[in-house]
């Protein structure tokens, strides 16, 4: 292992930022095809000495369900799932997420796979972290064409959960539930405010001075490149090979 030797990669900064938002969580679930959230969650697990449990969906080895596919949702309904990750074909400034398609539904200029668990988990999981690795005006829009899951709810609607942040390849936003708006929190190293403004289709708040998303310290980097990389390779071998140069352990 050569932690610190290779330059820090964007995926490592993003994963570390994600792990920072998972502190104290008892149980974190990671959806399918989410290698960077998976890396962040496993980092949180390592840091917590195992106290933060991570279930990576679609991988029998990393889930612990014995009551069918509904168990994840039941666990969330019981308030026992503290964090989840959600992406979207479109995400708008109100944190509404569209996983269905572009066009005037049910007509579709583009059809995506579907809403999966979003319309439920977004309501009941306290810390939903949005992610989108293509930060453009095509993906981060003023208003989504279809609301798979709304960012906020009317008063009176049972909603212990919701979005807390949106992380992209350019920056990190906090979501302000009371205002129903994003607030720029930090720019990833090398990214300018103008770049973010130019590529964001929605209006957002920003502080006077915007900081930089911190790079992981050497200890964190060693964890990422060591045990975390080895574990993520079991689930996302292609990702682990290209980012960490790590191969999955023989099963």
């Amino acid at each position: 292992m050569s932690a610190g030797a290779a330059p820090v990669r964007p995926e490592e900064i993003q994963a570390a930022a994600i792990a920072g938002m998972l502190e104290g969580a008892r149980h974190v679930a990671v959806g399918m095809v989410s290698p960077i959230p998976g890396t962040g969650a496993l980092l949180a697990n390592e840091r917590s000495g195992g106290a933060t449990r991570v279930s990576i969906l679609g991988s029998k080895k990393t889930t612990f369900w014995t009551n069918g596919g509904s168990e994840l949702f039941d666990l969330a309904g019981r308030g026992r799932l503290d964090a989840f990750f959600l992406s979207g074909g479109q995400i708008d400034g109100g944190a509404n997420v569209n996983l269905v398609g572009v066009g005037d539904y049910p007509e579709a200029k583009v059809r995506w796979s579907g809403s999966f668990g979003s319309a439920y988990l977004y309501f009941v999981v306290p810390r939903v972290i949005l992610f989108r690795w293509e930060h453009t005006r095509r993906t981060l829009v003023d208003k989504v064409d279809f609301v798979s899951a709304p960012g906020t709810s009317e008063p009176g609607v049972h909603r212990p959960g919701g979005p807390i942040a949106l992380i992209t390849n350019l920056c990190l936003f906090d979501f302000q539930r009371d205002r129903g708006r994003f607030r720029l929190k930090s720019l990833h190293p090398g990214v300018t405010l103008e770049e973010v403004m130019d590529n964001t289709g929605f209006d957002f708040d920003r502080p006077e001075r915007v900081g930089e998303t911190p790079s992981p310290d050497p200890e964190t980097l060693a964890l990422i490149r060591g045990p975390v990389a080895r574990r993520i390779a079991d689930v996302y071998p292609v990702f682990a090979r290209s980012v960490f140069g790590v191969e999955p352990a023989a099963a």
Partner: protein
Amino acid sequence: MTVQQLDVAALAALVPSGARIGVTKGEQTDVPMALTLELVRRGVRDLRMVTIPTCAFPASGMMLDILVGAGCVASVETSGVSMSELGAAPRFSAAVKAGSLKVIDATCPAVYAALQAGAKGQPFAALRGLIGSDLMAHRDDWAVVSNPFEDGDPVAVLKAINPDVTLFHAPMADRRGNVWIGRNRDLLTLAHASATTLVTVEKIVDFDLMEDETLAPAVIPDFYVTALAEAPGACWPQRADGSTDLDVVRGYMAAARTAEGFADWLSAHLDARPEAAE
């Protein structure tokens, strides 16, 4: 009573055109591909597919895509259709864009809750979330009611799901027709909820699964099973160990990018019977 044991074609012959068909998500070795290809051979039409709750693993997405591409499907009720990390389901996407396939968009826990109500024979299930989603606006089988036990608390309720026919593959059955499903509990819920349950199994064992107290907890008892076929490999391109031959799926996806490529792939595979390569 012993469950009828048939071959795959005879099993598929029990599926009428127009039936509402339940299929599971394909996380384990549950994809009924051999049955699917028989349905295509038979030219079944107007199926109303219900995915429990998605077909978004490579093999399950491919199975649904084949049924859609072959013109067997009128509608798909689903929370997600894709080939997972391999990409979108090509014939499904094309049919939606062409307006020739009705998609009844759902969300996973709503499918589960409605199916569980169906498995219990109850009219509807309550579920948190959903309110304010555009999914809700397009479902006349979902409604918002007032929680009778709490003032000012709107709750979504979902009409129960009861498929006409359920199709799946499972690791093993015994001669009476008890089916062992391992941790894939969705299969049991689906069998409880469905009028007819048709199962292909990797193998039929000679002992009574219900007599083995370590296996019995994961058994669907025979009285939920309408008929079954011993058909090793019938979950192709899934393998018996739960992995999937992704090269098969990639090959399918490359071919199915166009209607012509799909037709070629289909006729080649309907003849070759790759799902029955024993």
